[in-house]
Structure formats: structure tokens, C-alpha cells
């Protein structure tokens, strides 16, 4: 458990300082009232010494005080629970929202290279463990320590000798607790490691379940799962057993304390230095005094798990973000010129990809990019949209270096449709409206009509209010693509990027969509990647890329006349198989 993590965690409680102070007061009140009760009970017991020796009037007094003390304790504890609950869930909400916000500022290179399961478990389960372990743990820790101190004060107030006996035995309890937590911590971290491995495997296999079944891979994946699961079992048993030692062991120490108080107390009573009632108070204290030790040692194991979770959350929060661009001007009145100047880029420094790339696009030009798979077409888009930053050189849009304007303004001047569709869980209307500012229903329907999606949407049971999600099987891949196109049609961007945007759509619809695109692309700069060369014939410039370089550039006719790589590519499409 390191101090930095603790400090940082506490910083999240800061906004709740008034509540935390209140909790502090309530806990102090609750604890002291809880501790007063046994004294009053003890005094009441002393009122009933034996046959005929009972002071009823005095006893009645004590009983009335006790009623108030009990009610006060209950009230304080109730309020404490209430307040802590607010603090704990509020903090978790704050951390979680912050982690998510952080995620949206992370560069694509981080997101592309981190297993999704890891990010998921940080935002979901690790943060939950913070709420369970640390926040709840601190309440117990705090009331626990307050109880211990309070009890000690009361005990020393009543009888120093017996109190000393208690204090002397206490280190035993601490020793046992720390021994257990040291050993269980090791097992716990091993367990959470294996659990993470299991989670990752499950996540992958379940999301790819359809493929698993198609290849009858179930048995073997179950075997692998069973193997990890078995390992989890082994360290799970050890971790659980070790941590389960805490309760009985501390209970045992309690027993010893209780016996010791009993014996020394009885001796003191025999010697006349204590009343039986006070002995009963002491016995109650002996129970109360050791109980927090139980709880604290129990809390420690939870705290350890929580700290491990917190550290992972903080690691995410500390990831390097995209360079902040708030101070930069946004791109306004984009005219649609794009120039790429001497750009170098590679994902992996050892494998050069794009080298000395140059391109000039004037407003309204339609640029098509063709080339064999893996030649860097998609990478070019990553650079244009600034999902990745160039290693060398620069990209200039509308006369401005794209690193000198805000990302949002750059990106929203493009409309992008990718081959891989993305829809979120929500209605079709919401999905189309994504990216637009409060469009009217008419505008949404208009966009859907332009994208030729209107007719199939109308046929759905709830029309535009049908709830869909990305892994929905009720609408086809092509229909999903039409929805993504409608989304772009709605925002009418200044520039367009179409990366195989129509690959899952049948050609007839594609031609219609293409026409619609032509209409909105009119006067707009566009970048089109397509395998079907027929769809890009009319482009103003065709870039033929191979291994990260532009090898040919020109119009369709020029390139055909050149009889180069494009010519071959084009002819191969129309050759009989």
C-alpha cells in the first residue's frame, strides 16, 4: 500500500469534505455513545446486589439514561451510514466519469494497442473494488480506531491494572493480523492475476462465440478455459483460506483477552477494588475493544485488493494524453484544400510505412485512392483525421497546419464512413442524429432518404424508434452501412472520407448512394477508397498506392493510357475468372 495512492484516493473525497467532516463527527458521537452504554449497564447491575438489596429508584434513573443513549447511538449510526453511502458512491461516480473522460482523450495508438478487456475491467470492476474496499474500509477503519481509543480511555478511567492487561495482550492480535495479511496479500495478487487472465480469455471467446461455434472449437476452448479456471481454483483456495484465518484467529485472541480480563477483574473484585457491575462493564469492553481489531484486519485484505485496483485506475489516468488543443484556434470556414507535405509515418519505428508522401488537393476535388491490400490507404486516413500524428512533414488543411487547430474542428469538417460500421445501442433516430446538433425529424428523415435507408427503416416494427445495436442481427451489414451514411448525409461536411463505405451494399443501391454522394460532394473535397474501380472512375485524381508510396497519379483515362499498375488492376477486374 503506498502513500501516494492513498493520498490520491483521498483527493477524490475532497469535494465531499463537508460530508466527510459530518461523518467524522457522527462517528465520534456514535462511538462514544456506544461506549457509554456498557458503563450505564454496569452501574444498573450494581444496583441489584442480592436478595433484598436492590436500589430500584437509582436503577430506574440509569435505565432512563440508557434509553436516551441507545436512541442517540442508533441515530448517529444511521446518519453515519447515510452520509458514508453518499460519499462512497459519489466518489466512485466521480472516479468513473473521470476515467471515462480520460479514455476519450487518449491517443488512438494507446487504444489500438491495449486489449479492450483490460480497459473494460479498469473502468468497471477495479473502480467497484475501490468503492467496496477503500471507502467502506475507511469507515470501518475509522470507527474501529475511534472505538479502540475510546475504550482504552474508559478502561483506564475505571481501573488501570485491568486496562494494562488488555493493552499487553493487544500486540498479539496485531501480530497475528499482520502475519496473515502479509501472506494473503501475495496470494491475493496471484489470484487477481489469474482472474484477469480468465476474464480476458472469456471476453475474447464470448465475443467471438459465433466463430468458435462455426469451427466447433467449443471443446478446445473449454479445455483452455478449464485449465485457467483450475489454476484460479488452486490460488483461490489458498487466498481464501489465508484470509479466512483472520476471523477465527482474532476471535481466539479476543477469547484470551476476555479470559484475562475475567481473571484479573475477578481478583480485583475479590480484593475489593472493583464492583461486579464494573467487571461486567469491563467484560463488555473486552469484547468491544478486540472487535475493531477483527474488523481492521478484515478490512486490510479488502483494502489491499482495492489498492491494487486503484493503482490500475490511476495508471490509466496517468496515460499520456493527446496534446491538449484547447488553446488552439478551431478551423473555420474550411475551404476544402488539403496538402500533404513530405510526410513520413510508421506505426512501428522498425517497419517504415509511409515515406515522403506528397499530395495536393484543391477544393471540390475528388481524390480516389487505390492499391493492393496493406498499401497504406487506411493509414493515410488515420493521418488526415489526425487519429495518429505524422512522424515528419505536415498536413495542411485550408491553409492551416492540422497540428495548429483543434482536433474536433478538423474532424468535424470531414464526414467519414468506414467499412466497419459502428452503431450504438439506441434508436435509429438517435444513431442517425449522431454528430448533428439537434436536428429536426424532417432533417433526419431527409438524410435517411438520401442514403436510401428510409424504406427499410419504415418497414421495421417501430420505424425510426426501433432500438438497434452494433451486434444486432435484425438488420444486415449493408443496412448498417446505409445508416452510417445517413449520419454523414445529415451533417453535410465540407470534406468527405469514404473508406470502402459501400462495400457491403449491393451495387444498385450503391449507385444510388453514390449519386447522392455526388450531389453532396459537389464542391466538396472527398477522399474515396474503393476496390470497385468502377465507382471511382470519375474521380478528379486517382492515387495508386503501393507499399506506402504513391506510384501513379492521374485521371482514369490518363492512368489507363499509361499502361502501368492501374491498368493491370483495372483489367483484372473485368477479366473472366
Amino acid at each position: 500500500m503506498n502513500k501516494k495512492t492513498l493520498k490520491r484516493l483521498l483527493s477524490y473525497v475532497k469535494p465531499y469534505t463537508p460530508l466527510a467532516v459530518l461523518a467524522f463527527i457522527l462517528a465520534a458521537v456514535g462511538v462514544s455513545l456506544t461506549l457509554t452504554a456498557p458503563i450505564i449497564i454496569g452501574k444498573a447491575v450494581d444496583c441489584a446486589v442480592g436478595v433484598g438489596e436492590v436500589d430500584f429508584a437509582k436503577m430506574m434513573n440509569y435505565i432512563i439514561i440508557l434509553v436516551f443513549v441507545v436512541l442517540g447511538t442508533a441515530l448517529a449510526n444511521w446518519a453515519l451510514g447515510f452520509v458514508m453511502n453518499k460519499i462512497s458512491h459519489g466518489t466512485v461516480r466521480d472516479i468513473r466519469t473521470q476515467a471515462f473522460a480520460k479514455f476519450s482523450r487518449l491517443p488512438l495508438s494507446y487504444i489500438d494497442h491495449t486489449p479492450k478487456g483490460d480497459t473494460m475491467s479498469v473502468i468497471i470492476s477495479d473502480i467497484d473494488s475501490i468503492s467496496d474496499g477503500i471507502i467502506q474500509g475507511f469507515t470501518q477503519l475509522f470507527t474501529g480506531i475511534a472505538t479502540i481509543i475510546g475504550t482504552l480511555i474508559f478502561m483506564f478511567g475505571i481501573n488501570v491494572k485491568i486496562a494494562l492487561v488488555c493493552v499487553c495482550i493487544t500486540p498479539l492480535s496485531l501480530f497475528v493480523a499482520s502475519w496473515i495479511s502479509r501472506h494473503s496479500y501475495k496470494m491475493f495478487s496471484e489470484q487477481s492475476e489469474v482472474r484477469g487472465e480468465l476474464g480476458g480469455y472469456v471476453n475474447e471467446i464470448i465475443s467471438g462465440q459465433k466463430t468458435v461455434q462455426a469451427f466447433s472449437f467449443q471443446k478446445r476452448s473449454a479445455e483452455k478455459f478449464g485449465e485457467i479456471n483450475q489454476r484460479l481454483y488452486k490460488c483461490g483456495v489458498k487466498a481464501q483460506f489465508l484470509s479466512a484465518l483472520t476471523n477465527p484467529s482474532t476471535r481466539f485472541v479476543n477469547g484470551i483477552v476476555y479470559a484475562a480480563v475475567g481473571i484479573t477483574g475477578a481478583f480485583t473484585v475479590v480484593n475489593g477494588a472493583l464492583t461486579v457491575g464494573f467487571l461486567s462493564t469491563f467484560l463488555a469492553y473486552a469484547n468491544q475493544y478486540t472487535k475493531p481489531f477483527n474488523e481492521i484486519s478484515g478490512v486490510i485484505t479488502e483494502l489491499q485488493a482495492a489498492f491494487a485496483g486503484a493503482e490500475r485506475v490511476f495508471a490509466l489516468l496517468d496515460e499520456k494524453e493527446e496534446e491538449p488543443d484547447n488553446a488552439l484556434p478551431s478551423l473555420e470556414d474550411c475551404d476544402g484544400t488539403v496538402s500533404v507535405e513530405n510526410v513520413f509515418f510508421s506505426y512501428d519505428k522498425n517497419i517504415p510505412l509511409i515515406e515522403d508522401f506528397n499530395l495536393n488537393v484543391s477544393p471540390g476535388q475528388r481524390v480516389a485512392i487505390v492499391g493492393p491490400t496493406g498499401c497504406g490507404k487506411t493509414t493515410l486516413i488515420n493521418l488526415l483525421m489526425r487519429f495518429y500524428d505524422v512522424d515528419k512533414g505536415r498536413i495542411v488543411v485550408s491553409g492551416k497546419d492540422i497540428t495548429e487547430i483543434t482536433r474536433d474542428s478538423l474532424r468535424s469538417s470531414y464526414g467519414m464512413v468506414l467499412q466497419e460500421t459502428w452503431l450504438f445501442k439506441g434508436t435509429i433516430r438517435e444513431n442517425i442524429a449522431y454528430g448533428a446538433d439537434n436536428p429536426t425529424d424532417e432533417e433526419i428523415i431527409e438524410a435517411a432518404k438520401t442514403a436510401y435507408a428510409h424504406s427499410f427503416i419504415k418497414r421495421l416494427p417501430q420505424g425510426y424508434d426501433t432500438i438497434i445495436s452494433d451486434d444486432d442481427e435484425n438488420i444486415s451489414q449493408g443496412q448498417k452501412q446505409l445508416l452510417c451514411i445517413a449520419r454523414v448525409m445529415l451533417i453535410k461536411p465540407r470534406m468527405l472520407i469514404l473508406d470502402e463505405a459501400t462495400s457491403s451494399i449491393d451495387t444498385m443501391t450503391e449507385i444510388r448512394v453514390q449519386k447522392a454522394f455526388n450531389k453532396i460532394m459537389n464542391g466538396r473535397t472527398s477522399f474515396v477508397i474503393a476496390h470497385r474501380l468502377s465507382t471511382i472512375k470519375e474521380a478528379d485524381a486517382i492515387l495508386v498506392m503501393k507499399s506506402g508510396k504513391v506510384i501513379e497519379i492521374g485521371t482514369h483515362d490518363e492512368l489507363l493510357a499509361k499502361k502501368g499498375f492501374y491498368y493491370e488492376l483495372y483489367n483484372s477486374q473485368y477479366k473472366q475468372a
Partner: protein
Amino acid sequence: MLKLARYLKKYLKEVIIGPLFKLTEAVFELIVPLVMAKIIDVGIKNADKPYILKMGGVMVLLGVVGLCCALVCQYLASKASQGIGTDLRNDVFAKISSLSYSKLDKFGSASLVNRIISDVNQLQLAVAMLIRLVVRVPFLIIGATVMAFSINAKLAVIFVVIIPLVALSLYLVMSRSVPYYKRIQKNLDGISGIVRENLNGVRVIRAFSGQEREMERFGKAANTLMRENIRVGRISAVLNPVCYVILNFAIIAILYFGGQRVYDGSVSQGDIIALVNYMTQISLALVVFANLVVIFTKAGASAARVNEIFDETPDIADGEGASEVEGAPAIEFRNVYFDYGNNGEYELSDLSFSIAKGETIGIIGSTGSGKSTLINLIPRFYDAAMGDVLVDGVNVKEYKLEELRKKIGVVPQKSSLFSGTVAENLTIGNENASEDVLKKAVRIAQAEDIIERMPKGFDTFIAEGGRNLSGGQRQRLTIARALVCEPQILILDDSSSALDYVTDLNLRKAIKEETDNMTVLIVSQRAAAIKSADRIIVLDEGRIAAIGKHEELLKTSDVYIEICKSQEVLN
């Protein structure tokens, strides 16, 4: 939850012996106040120091034996609960593997993952508590009551009145909070869903500058979760104080009525201390009991979610097993209808056709015409609503699923690869594939150059989902993966969309030349990709518009002519 009780069977020994040891410890704990009462009433009264020491020794001894018993119990509890958790996870995993595509769609993978991980953990915890505390707690409560009766029957009546009162308040609080736990779990699923969507759609979201909107959406979900959590917390925060009040009022009653009995001599001072002690013990036990109830209600909700998976009747189950009919066509559809069960409109209506062995069939049609749906019926990813699908002359429902799917190699639209080496990925359908088979498959799939360019060839590691590969590379590897199974039927579901024309052409050529007698179904948008097929099935709004050769269709089918025209295949 009872349905899952069968998992306890294997650990019956632990489940029975564990609590017995715990019980012994509890018995010793109950004796302690009695011993203390003896010290007060006998030792102190007679100033008998050796007696006090002796009794003190007894208390220590009780503690030591209690500790040993508790340790045995904890060990058994760990073993049984972890064991049951492990068994459950294995079974849930296996069950998920048997769920049909439509059931998988219904649950969604986020929810399935949550169920197999967190819900099973919750149940595991419940089992541990079952062994450790379920016997102990009621025993302490009942035991303390019995002890109270043995001291003084009339004062013990207080115990009998108090316990139902506490139970009632427990019930009231719990019954109000249980529905919240279910809702909270649902909210958590929702949050996971948003995170997943954001991970998958990060490019689109940023392209539309949707980060703010996503944060708002996430913030809303996180807020709802917080509110529900606080609401349920508000209810359960009442529980402990209420119990505290009830129990302490009971102690007050003991003092009040006890005082009178001490006065008339039917009860001693030590007895009163013992009674108060027992009441305290009950109150401690009840706190644990309340926690137990929380754990078990949560476990109940988890059990229900796990059972939802178990209760899914496998709508697509193994058949008896069958062997192919000699000379039968490779695939036959007889009046097949299909719907995804949402709006009564059929996705596919009245499909009938048959495909001979070794034939290459092209399937073409507009978006949403049912092409993928059609081919999903052949490996029985979905079952037809009406009509029969036959493979090798046998209804697909009669095959064992594995038997059927071994015959068929499917290359889906969305290519999903798993983390592992290239070789591991390629052999998932046929683990004993020889190197020759592997190389041939790679060659046919036009993936030789991918493997060659990889640093470690077949042993190169592929990241989850194939993130370190391009779309085209992924697609070619998934095609190779299907070919490694040496299927009798190969289905390419628009799976060359990320390939350029030359590669696609070479792929089709290689399939034709290098596999003998393999039946091939090519679903495509491109007429050029299927025009050389032996026959072409033209689909239009879920019905067969025409079947025939390219040349025939050009004469007979308007739909087909239109498609070809649109793609300039005719000039």
C-alpha cells in the same frame, strides 16, 4: 438459487463437516459467559482465587479448541466454495458454447461475460458463507436463547419476544432492497455496454467529435447507478440502528425485570450479567446475519442471472447423428421460411433449390435480400421456421452439430481472429492439420505473402481480434482458416470485400483449381465475382428471383440484368 444446489453435492462432505466444526466452536463460545457467571457467583462470592484461576484456564482452553475447529471449517469452506465456483464457471462456459446464435444475440456478450465472472464470484462467496456462518449464526441465536431459559425461564421470555421483532425488521428492510440489487446489476451492464461501444467505435466517435456526447451518456449512466446505489444504501442503513435499538431495549428489560427478581432472590447478579452477555452475543450474531442476508440476496440475484443461461433450452441441439445419403445433393432447401422472430415478417420465404456436390454457386441480391440469412441456415447457426434444410441428403437437424459443422467451412463477413499465433488461429477448426494442409490453405487463400512477411511466420502472435493486421490480411487468414478444415462445403459470405480485385480473382481461381469436389457458395455484391459460378441464385426480398447460369440469367432475370448493368459487367 435452489436450482444451483446440485453443485453442493460434490462437496457434500465439506458442506456437512464444515458447519459441524463451526458449531463446536459456537458451543464453546456459548459456554464462556456461563463460566464467567460461575466466576462471579462462586469465585468472587467465596473469594476463591484458585477457583477463579481454574475457570480462567477453562476459558483459555475453550478458546484453543475453538480456534482449531474454526480453522478446519475455514479450510473446508475455502475448498468447497472455490471448487463450486470453478465447476460453475466451467459449466456456464460450456453452456454458452452450446447457445445458438439467436440466444447469443439475446444476451449480448457484455452481459454473458459479467455473468460468468462477477455473478459466479457472488455465488462463490455465498457458498463460503453458507458453510462458515449459516449454521453458526442461527445456532448462536437459538443457543443463547436456550441458555437464557436455563438461567431463568421468565426473563428468557424477553429473548423470545425480541428475536421475531429483529427478524421482522430484517425482512422488511431486505424485501425492500432486493429489487434494487437487480436494477443495479442491470445498470452496471449498461455501463459496460457503453464502454464497449466506445472501445469499438473510437474512430467514428472521434470523427464526429462525439466525445462530449459520449461522456454525457456515460455520466448519465454513472449517475443513475449512483442514485440507485444510494437509494438502496438508504434503506439498508436503517437496519443496523433498528436492530441495535431493539436489542438494547431488551437489555433494559432484562435489567428492569431482572432487578425485581434479584430482589426476591430467584436470580443472582451473575445471572443478570450472563443474560446481558447472551443478549450482546445475539446482537453480534444478528449483525452477521444481516450481512449474510445481503450476501444471499445478492447471490439470489446472481443465481437468477446464471440460471437464465442454464435455463436456455438449446433451441439448436445435437441431432441423433446421421451418415450421408449416397448420391444425394450436397445442399438442398425444401420450402424454407425464416424469421428472426421479431415482426412476423419472413426474412426468407419459400426457398427451394438443391446444389450438387462440387458445384460452385453464386448468391447475389440487394442489401437485406437475405443472402447471409440463407447461408446461416446451412451450418444450423439458426433453424428454419418452416421447411427443411438438407446437407448430403440428411436434414441438418439430424446431424450432431459438430458432425455437420465439420463438413462446412464458413468465412463470415466480420472476420474475427483470436489472440494466439497464426498457426493456432488457422487450426482452430482442425487441430491435427498437417503442415502440408496448412500451407496449401494459405496458398489458396492468397495469404502466403502475409505469412512470409511476418517476423516469425506461422508462430507470429496475433493480437486480440487481429488488431495488428489490416482488414485484407484478416480476411485472407479467415479464409485460410476455413480451408484448413478441408471442408466439403465452403461458404464465403461476402468475405472478399476487403480484397482487391486481383487477389480476389486469384483466390477464386485457386479455390477452383486446388480443391477437388468441394462445393463452394460465394455470397457477393459483385456480379464479376460470381458470374463464372456454375449457377447463380438471385435473391430479392427473401425470395428466389431466379436460378441459373450467368448467360441464362441475362436473358431471363430482370433483377440480375439490372445488377449487372449497374456494375458495368456487360460492356
